[in-house]
């Protein structure tokens, strides 16, 4: 118990609960089933991106190209399905999108692992290149009418209930299960596979990792490919949630995702970070953004608050660390 209380995850959970209570008191509609289901759903895309960012941060890198991978995968898939007027199972849409994601991830991975280049700068370049490629050579128009299977997927909810107050029906979207499965998969990789242990080792000490017999190249290759895979899935889910495919979407959300992951306890190059922490961090960020609206704060404050959250999230652990060292 004592061990649990001292973890970073515990503090994040406490803040999350405290914030929820405050928002709930100010605006009771926060605790309605409808809002909770909506909150969970709006966790999904940020959360899946964050799982990728988690791996990158643990290993000591920083990646900002994932929203571009997401939007390219989603938009190309949307274009393709529209062209062939696809009507089969939706799983194909997912497979196409995640394949494109993996492909772009492999490009990132190859550049980073072969040439030993700084991850931030590579991803700054690929972010611009991927999105620029689609906007230049594919199209710039929003697809407003998704194909039939995608529309059907966007309506797939379980636990459908009709709210007594408003008469609207709400349900728990199946995307949440996709998110959970991916979270479990990521946790399993980090905890029980060789490459997952390598990710932690790499963030802890690069040289020691190499001496211990890990192939840094392979670990880095895996990380950025996996990020691409997750971004591909997140992209197509986003498209289903908003029911369009917009090539200008998602890019710009990277800070929100990084802030969530850092808030969840991942430290860059510290070899630290857990999936549970990330899930909590994402939930906290989502609740904060959601509560801005519920508390009636204009949306143009969002960028400022995201930045402040990120700064606080990176500073507080360092202050604690310094205090512990001086004690």
């Amino acid at each position, binding site marked *: 118990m004592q061990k649990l209380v001292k973890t970073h995850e515990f503090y994040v959970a406490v803040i999350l609960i405290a914030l929820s209570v405050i928002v709930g008191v100010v605006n009771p509609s926060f605790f309605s089933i409808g809002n909770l289901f909506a909150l969970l759903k709006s966790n999904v895309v940020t959360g899946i991106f964050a799982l990728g960012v988690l791996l990158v941060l643990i290993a000591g890198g920083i990646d900002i190209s994932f929203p571009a991978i997401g939007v390219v995968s989603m938009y190309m898939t949307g274009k393709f399905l529209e062209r062939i007027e696809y009507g089969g199972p939706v799983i194909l849409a997912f497979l196409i999108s995640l394949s494109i994601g993996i492909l772009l991830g492999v490009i990132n991975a190859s550049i980073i692992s072969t*040439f030993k280049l700084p991850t931030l700068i590579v991803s700054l370049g690929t972010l611009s290149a991927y999105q620029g490629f689609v906007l230049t050579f594919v199209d*710039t128009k929003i697809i407003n009418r998704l194909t039939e299977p995608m529309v059907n997927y966007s309506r797939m909810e379980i636990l459908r209930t009709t709210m007594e107050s408003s008469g609207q029906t709400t349900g728990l979207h199946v995307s949440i299960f996709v998110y959970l499965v991916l979270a479990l998969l990521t946790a399993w990789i980090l905890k029980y596979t060789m490459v997952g242990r390598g990710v932690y080792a790499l963030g802890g000490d690069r040289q020691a990792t190499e001496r211990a017999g890990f192939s840094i190249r392979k670990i880095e290759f895996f990380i950025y490919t996996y990020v691409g895979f997750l971004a591909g899935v997140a992209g197509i889910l986003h498209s289903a949630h908003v029911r369009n495919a917009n090539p200008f979407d998602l890019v710009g959300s990277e800070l929100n995702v*990084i802030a969530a992951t850092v808030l969840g306890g991942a430290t860059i190059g510290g070899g630290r970070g857990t999936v549970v922490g990330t899930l909590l961090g994402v939930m906290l960020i989502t609740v904060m953004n959601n509560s801005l609206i519920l508390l009636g704060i204009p949306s143009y404050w969002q960028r400022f608050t995201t930045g402040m959250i990120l700064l606080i999230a990176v500073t507080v652990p*360092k202050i604690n660390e310094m205090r512990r060292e001086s004690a």
Partner: protein
Amino acid sequence: MSDLQTNDGKRPLLQRFMTSDDNLNRLIIISLSIFVLMAVLNSGRFVTMRNFRSMSYSFPELGLLSLGLTLCMITGGIDLSVVGTANLTSILAAKIMAEQMPADATGSTLWLYLALAVVVALTVGLAGGLVNGFLVSTFNIHPVLVTLGTWQVFSGIAIVLTEGYAVPGFPEQFLFLGNARLLGLPVPLYVFVVFAIFVAILLNRTQLGLSIYLIGTNITAARFAGVRVRSVLIRTYMSSALLASVAGLVMIARTNQAKADYGESYILQAVLVNLLAGVNWAGGFGRVIGVAIAVLTLQFLSSGFNMLRFNNFARDFTWGVFLIAVMVFNYVMNERKARREANLAADNA
């Protein structure tokens, strides 16, 4: 240096036209090739007085932002908040000029307001740099995370102040900074040259400059050598923010309006300029002359693309690919050089 000696006998003629800096030589060649390529593709339009003039109006903004980044990169850090700083400070200046100053202000009242606008912009810029430097040096937080955060905060404040709208309309006396000509040359060009010289002197002739290089080369060694790392880092990030604020003032003087989301793509380009200039991303190396040539090179590309009717998306795509290509190229060249030196050492032994 060993490189030079081995090549001495082989190419004496070429040597006379080359500097002793491999990176710089490479950059000059790349720059000239791009210039020639663009001149050929846009024959009759590129090599004209008009184009040169329009280029020298537009590159100083990016040049000033890049110089700030150079200082931070030499210490082994990075400042991603430069565009945020430029926008926030220029919006404050814009608000003073467009909203506080009486519309019929003339003479000394007007100049007083202009001075106030500039002083406020630069002071807020310095304060922003202080925050960056403080967080990076005192808490030892990764500069990427710090400046990503402050970038959002600065832009966030700018958005809140303007509610997302542009702040237009400045007095003619201020627009001079962005649009006028002095002895036939654009004023922004003078601003860039003055600050480039200022940064060059700072890096090469001052104690602070020496400390910046030392920190970037080996921070532990710098500490043992008595460098006050914290103070140097704070001053570095403050200088970067000061340059960004000046860039912001030039920007709004050129466009006659201030916007919270102006020039977001400048950050990618500023990083690209520095890498192209041979500034080492791991710290310890970088020269102002390189940055100046690199920013010109990017301007050749950009203007050339404009004439070829490339749209913004195509340009973003090119910047991204170019950024990666430059890094891979530098990597390959450095590997080759390392191998050559290893061979040389083996031969001597």
